[in-house]
């Protein structure tokens, strides 16, 4: 992963940053209905992102029951599914995201160090 010295301090500061920074990590979480599993997945996703990608990510939660055609377009089979669309390559994990280490590894996201 490319290191950008400009963005790193902004993330540390937790300030609202430029669009480029918000869109650095674009994640989509597909759930089906607000089942306990879905709710758990959403909470986990938010938590992981805040922990590791604070300030430079965008997380979109999509209920497939509202937009069923997306399931086909995005090739969703198992839910909950978290897809990292940016930066490329696209990576995905399934499950309720309770294992944060595997989520980060699976999506090839940087773990927050220090």
């Amino acid at each position: 992963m490319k290191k950008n010295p400009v963005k790193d301090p902004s993330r540390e500061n937790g300030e609202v940053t430029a669009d480029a920074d918000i869109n650095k990590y674009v994640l989509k979480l597909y759930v089906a209905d607000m089942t306990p599993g879905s709710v758990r997945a959403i909470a986990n996703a938010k938590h992981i992102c805040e922990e590791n990608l604070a300030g430079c990510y965008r997380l979109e939660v999509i209920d497939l029951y509202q937009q069923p055609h997306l399931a086909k377009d995005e090739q969703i089979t198992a839910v909950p599914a978290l897809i990292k669309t940016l930066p490329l390559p696209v990576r995905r994990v399934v499950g309720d995201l309770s294992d944060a280490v595997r989520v980060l590894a699976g999506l090839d996201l940087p773990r927050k160090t220090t």
Partner: protein
Amino acid sequence: MAKPAHKSKPRAKPSTPPRQQLAKSPTGIPGLDEITGGGFPTGRTTLVCGGSGCGKTLLAMEFLVRGATQFDEPGVFMSFEETPRELNDNVASLGFDLQSLIRRKKLLFEYVYLERSEIEETGEFNLEGLFIRLAHAIESIGAKRVVIDTIESLFSGLPNPSILRAEIRRLFRWLKEKGVTAIVTGERGSETLTRQGLEEYVSDCVIMLDNRLHEQICLRRLRVVKYRGSTHGTNEYPFLIDEDGIAMMPITSIGLEQDISTQRVSTGVQRLDSMLGGKGYYRGSTVLVSGTAGTGKSTLGASFADAACRRGERAIIFSLEESPKQIIRNMRSAGIDLERWVRSGLLQFHSARPSMYGLETHLSLMQKAIHAFKPQAVVVDPLNSFVSGGNEIDVKALLMRLVDFMKCRQITGLFTSLTTAGTPIEHTDIAVSSIIDTWIVLRDIEYSGERTCAVYVLKSRGMAHSKQLRELLLTDKGVQLRDAYIGLGGVLTGTARSNQEAAERAEQLVLKQQMELGQQELATKRQILESQIAAMRAEFALREVASLKNTEQQRALETLATEQRKQMGRFRSADKLKLASSQRANPRKSK
């Protein structure tokens, strides 16, 4: 698109019995609906399992395509393995125009892409995404039929089999609730029907496909392992995949309900007709001509086809050993001109080596040819070519189905069969005699350095046929039959027969001459006798005259003597006594 060949085929639907039957969705696949008694269970899930390359995907696809085109039931094809493009290309060669069906919203592809390496499991999950996709697809075209091919791919594409199992179980329940008629395909496992034991979840109908090699030739078979709530054919049924998709041969289980004709058709050989009650074969009957090599089986077959064409009927000759040109040449030497019938479109040849295809393909090709050409006469020459390495049972099954197929269409079939030298004449490699109506046996007879051929009718159902042996001659005017010489020395044919006939003629000549001689002798004797009689008569007449004359003489002499005595008396003055007595004797004179 459905092929006209199948559309026009009268489909033998089982007559609907009054009792409540399980609702069934016809597959439209020829033969399969007969076996399953009407199709797959409506609103339930059918498992189609089998090894790779045995036609699972094709069967499922055909179920959808035929459902969409023939029964107006739109279908969803959920594929885990092939992309819509691949599927489209794969089945285009079978004449299915998927693109058109998709455009008309009769068919919908749902390709599920799973890549194990791209998916990390991070906790509990379910397959709701799949359900949503399927539900969306079903609703968007109002699908009544669903195919999931191959659901077991989930196990290689997603982690955590225990979750998957639970989800698949839920999927089948869900499909049932949706009321769609579904086919789920599964790869065959080593000990179970499917690798993942799907048969545990699908318990309504299980179809097993098999694809096995026999003598380097592939045989495809289908079996209904289970069909809850319905009777079904339990055998293994052969099927094949040809350019029209799956075709199952209809079938031995159809039964024996053909119409029967009393019409007769000529055998093409006049004397043979007269041996068969004077009229030939029954129309729609099955004729077997068996015999050793070179006894004229093919020629009898060709004569039969020739006779059919002469009547203006169509005929097909399926030749498994000779090319059409060869047959035409050979038959021309026997005075049978087949070429003109080929040219006028009444005769078709289909030549194929038996090893070219499996039995099933042969059968199917024959049936297709018959279906397309609609002949009244069919010749298969020779039947035994099919036999190789102990598949007699299959050949018999093939023949039985071919016979049933032809009988249903009132086609007269003539099969030839080569009897191996040394085996009994009544023996055929395939024990087919029971399904044969008329059996003509040709046998060669070797006698005094000559080989001739005799023919007789071993059996002919429903007619009074000749039971005599005839000699068969292949002349340049076709097949001719002659009376065989049947004498004390057995049956004589060929020159032995003509020798015998000449000897007989000579004997008869001698006998005749002897008889004439005898008659002449008798006539002479009669003449002699008559002349003798005449001589004797003459002699007798002479004697008679002589004796008459003698009597007269005597009488005259007597009168003369009496006169003389009277005169003497008068001269000697005879005494009174004498006078009186003489007076008494002659009163006038005594006065």
